[in-house]
């Protein structure tokens, strides 16, 4: 997944993951990269190509986001959910 959404608060990060998965989008919570996610501990990886649909879905569900980024980490090792 080459997209990353940063959030103001973990409530919104967790909720974003729930909403996206419920609607069939790939989504994965990760520790927020410091340079993109200064506000809370977690960020959400997703498919950057789906960004318009994802942004619309989050807005419709009143999930507040900080920013949407194209992001390629050096490795996938830091994924908290597959470890």
């Amino acid at each position, binding site marked *: 997944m080459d997209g990353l959404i940063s959030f103001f608060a973990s409530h919104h990060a*967790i909720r974003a993951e729930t909403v996206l998965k419920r609607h069939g989008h790939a989504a994965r919570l990760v520790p927020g990269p410091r340079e993109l996610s200064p506000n809370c501990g977690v960020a959400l990886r997703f498919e950057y190509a789906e960004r318009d649909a994802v942004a619309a879905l989050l807005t419709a569900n009143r999930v507040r986001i900080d920013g949407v980024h194209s992001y390629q980490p050096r490795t996938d090792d830091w994924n*908290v959910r597959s470890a």
Partner: protein
Amino acid sequence: MIYFDNAATSWPKPPGVAAAMAECLSEAGGNPGRSGHRLSVAAARIVEDAREGLAALFGADDPSRIVFAPNATHALNLALYGLLRPRDRVVTTGIEHNSVMRPLRHLETRGVEVVVVPCGSDGSLDVQKVEQALQRGARLLVTTHASNVSGAIVPIAELAAVARKHGALYLVDAAQTAGSAPIDVGALGLDLMAFTGHKGLLGPTGTGGLYVRDGVSLTPLVRGGTGSESAYEIQPEFMPDMFESGTLNVAGIAGLATATRFLADLGVEAVQAHERQLAAHFMTEAAAVSGITLYGSGEATERCGIVSFTLADASPSEVGLLLDESFGIMARTGLHCAPAAHRTLGTFPAGTVRFSFGWFNTSSEVDTAVEALRQIAAWSANGAMTSPGHRVTEAQS
């Protein structure tokens, strides 16, 4: 043992609640929203799962409008102190719990005008009288959803409409009804609703919260760390973080989430019907007990699962002690933290004996309790009740 004190705290809890709390402590030990590691994320998932479940149960379309608090009292304080300023007028009723009245009486010393609309001697509230009080202008109307003494249900739908008509915000104290009476904050148009997790919601103590409608502006009661906007020394201004400073009771919230799922599967309507049926059954059967006075409306649809009564020539505390020691029946006696409600019913300062039924109570338990009251009434008629405790024991044998 028969537990009839569900209005103080519900017992037992649904299956899985204790296990969810234990699992939280052993498997999800991180601090929610503070870190990105798996234990922190696991804790945050528990909190957000609970928030979503509560939002669905209460008809709130946005879970971020549900703020966690240690209990309904804390949530009520957040709403009242967050909203009311000197020279504001607040309208309330004559059947409120001290969790509303004590903050209001304190705010009164800071220049808030408090108007108390009296209730009928059966604890019923006349909406027209509330409207008259609101016509003079008010910042806030605050009422309970159900009296914790008489069990009288307050018509919150009508009150919400009246408050809206006169430009007042409406705060509902749902301590006695959240989880045991259907509440749809969206359909009702409530502005604020305080709830506790450990009564009708069947969760553990130390949980509760406040629903805050989008557009209602409150000042936080507590400020501090939230895990968000950590670079700034000023409080965040977004939901729910602005009202959730300090680490939440994650284990308690884990139990609450499980209890909320249990209720959602069961249907709150089913719980309400069961508790009303028990209350109606008790009122019918107990009416024949010699010397008993039952308080509140006899209409099942006008009450929740709470009934209050007194026995002639026996103090409520004596009756409560005998119910416990001789019959294994747990009831609450006295003033129930609601002196205003007892003044309304005419039972101040002696108070009443209160039975509060829950989902796990049965009709046969009610029958056992009525039989116990018949026995206690007989002892009372024989003069045993005014004697020292050892003579009560003699009378029993």
